């Protein structure tokens, strides 16, 4: 801030193009699943959204087999430098998504990753097969970590189950499979290693951290679902530690997220070992947050003495 006031630096021009699991990307900025509904945003902002789409790759909200209403209100609570949500994966279900949403999402023009979650390995398999069969889809993210849904599976907490699930799903598609890890374990790297062993192409992290809030008026729990997940800058130091631990334990690339609010914090995730990054909660504060990260990256890289993303990746703190 003061630095830039003392001597305004001209923006360096830099090619940020990159990729994840073989999907070529114009830059390293994804959205966190469930933090940007591109179809709603198009209704609100019109075609300006498409002309100036803020992400290099779009990740859908997590899709489930059947339509879900989501959790009862309240679903949101603001916390110091963060927020808790207990959304509970509302959505149209697989059929509704494939019929009504996927085509419209493809109009955006960036690679699409579809996030899926299920209560059973069978349903996971159906989701993966049917989603992967669609040409619009570049990759699939397996959400085994939502703190707001009580699924039968606790895959995300258990390395062995994660590996077994991956082994079951891996043969179903040649498209990249990204496993979204839960931060609510002692050692996320154990789960990541298992995911890799089972055939995952990448892991993404962190999902939200279990959290609670109390209604100031009633002194009961504030969230309709009783508890939720914390996100935003408050969790960034935890996310950085986990990204670092996981990226040094696995060979597959890591999609890093958790409290990224600007180019500096995005770059921290690259330094911690992430291949690409995702913007989540910051989208709520600024609909163009993803684009703002991209715009700030060249300067953020140069301030740390890097001429490219690759140079920053090579300098990971290890």
């Amino acid at each position, binding site marked *: 801030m003061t630095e830039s006031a003392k001597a305004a630096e001209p923006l360096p021009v830099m090619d940020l193009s990159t990729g994840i699991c073989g999907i070529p990307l114009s830059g390293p900025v994804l959205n966190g699943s*469930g*933090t*940007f*509904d591109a179809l*709603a*945003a198009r*209704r*609100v*902002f*019109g075609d*300006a*959204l498409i002309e*100036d789409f803020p992400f290099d790759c779009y990740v859908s*909200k997590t899709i489930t087999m059947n339509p879900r*209403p*989501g*959790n*009862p*209100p*309240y*679903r*949101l*609570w*603001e*916390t*110091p*430098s*963060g*927020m808790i*949500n207990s*959304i509970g994966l*509302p959505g149209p279900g697989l059929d509704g998504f494939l019929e009504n949403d996927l085509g419209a999402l493809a109009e955006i023009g960036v690679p699409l990753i579809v996030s899926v979650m299920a209560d059973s390995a069978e349903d996971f398999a159906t989701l993966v097969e049917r989603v992967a069969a669609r040409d619009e889809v570049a990759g699939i993210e397996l959400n085994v970590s939502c703190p707001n849904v009580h699924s039968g599976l606790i895959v995300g907490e258990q390395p062995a189950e994660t590996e077994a699930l991956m082994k079951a799903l891996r043969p179903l598609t040649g498209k990249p499979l990204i496993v979204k890890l839960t931060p609510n374990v002692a050692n996320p790297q154990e789960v990541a290693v298992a995911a890799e062993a089972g055939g995952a192409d990448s892991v993404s992290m962190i999902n939200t951290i279990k959290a609670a809030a109390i*209604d100031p*008026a*009633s002194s*009961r*729990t*504030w*969230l*309709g679902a*009783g508890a939720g997940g914390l996100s*935003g800058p*408050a969790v960034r130091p935890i996310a950085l530690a986990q990204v670092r631990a996981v990226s040094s334990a696995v060979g597959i690339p890591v999609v890093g997220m958790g409290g990224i609010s600007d180019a500096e914090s995005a770059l921290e995730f690259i330094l911690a070992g992430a291949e690409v990054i995702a913007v989540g*909660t910051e*989208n*709520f*504060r*600024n*609909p*163009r947050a993803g*684009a703002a990260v991209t715009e700030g990256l060249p300067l953020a890289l140069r301030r740390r003495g890097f001429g490219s993303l690759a140079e920053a990746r090579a300098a990971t703190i290890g």
Partner: protein
Amino acid sequence: MPADPAATPDRVQAPFGRRLCEVAETRPSGGYRIFTLIDPEGPAPAPGQFFMLAAAPDWAREGGRPYLPRAISHARFTRHPGSGQRLDFLIDEVGPGTSRLAEMKPGDQCWVAGPFGGRFSLPRKLNPQAAGAILVGGGIGIAPMAVLRRELVDRGIPSRSLLGFRDQAHSGGVEELFGCEETRLAFEDGSSGHKGYVTDLLLQLLEGDDSASAAVYSCGPPAMLEAVRRICLEREVPVELALESPMACGYGACFGCAVPKADGGYLRLCIDGPVVRGDEIATAMAGEPAVD
């Protein structure tokens, strides 16, 4: 001014992203605070729409909140040949976000995203029989009522405004937004106007009038809205309510602003509302303490 009510689009689209606007004026009013932003870029918002606001450059206060922007309805939109487009807001300080907004001074900057959400229907669209509109505002909820009333005046559609307040310390904006035109006031503490609830005034009107030609619009605290909703549903009077719910984004991104629908499931208040028909929702009090 669009002539055909049916041709009025249900929402005005927002510029993509957020923009910095300057605070032109601020002043206290009956326990609330009114402030004015200069918004050179934005389109004219429609009645019922709202904005996501966050004081800049530093929004957070001691304790790390506010962090998310706050949903605030505009209370007036004006174009001045010299000073550009002005948006007025009416604020009740109930927590860190509203207090921080109320603290802004002329010359300060504020992040603005929006206008978001859909608009109130015109009376004829809500009720083809409508002779005019009945506006029922409570507390800070008089802001969107004021915007709607102004549009109705401009279109030459008759309306009556019923405004209710807890007490004088929660009764800002009446003169500034409604002028000296006929409005009927109710104060729960009896300090002025009718002593009691604004719904008493609504009941009087609906009993005197032919309910069949009424079109009711309302904004205010959840309990008031639920009372208005029930009164209208019982009498089969078409009613539109502008609701509140906790919002993180305002543009459909977070799915946080859920309000239970009458037929099950939830709507996203920020894009499916904030204006809803009375019969569309299960309750206007989804905002009540979750029982766990």
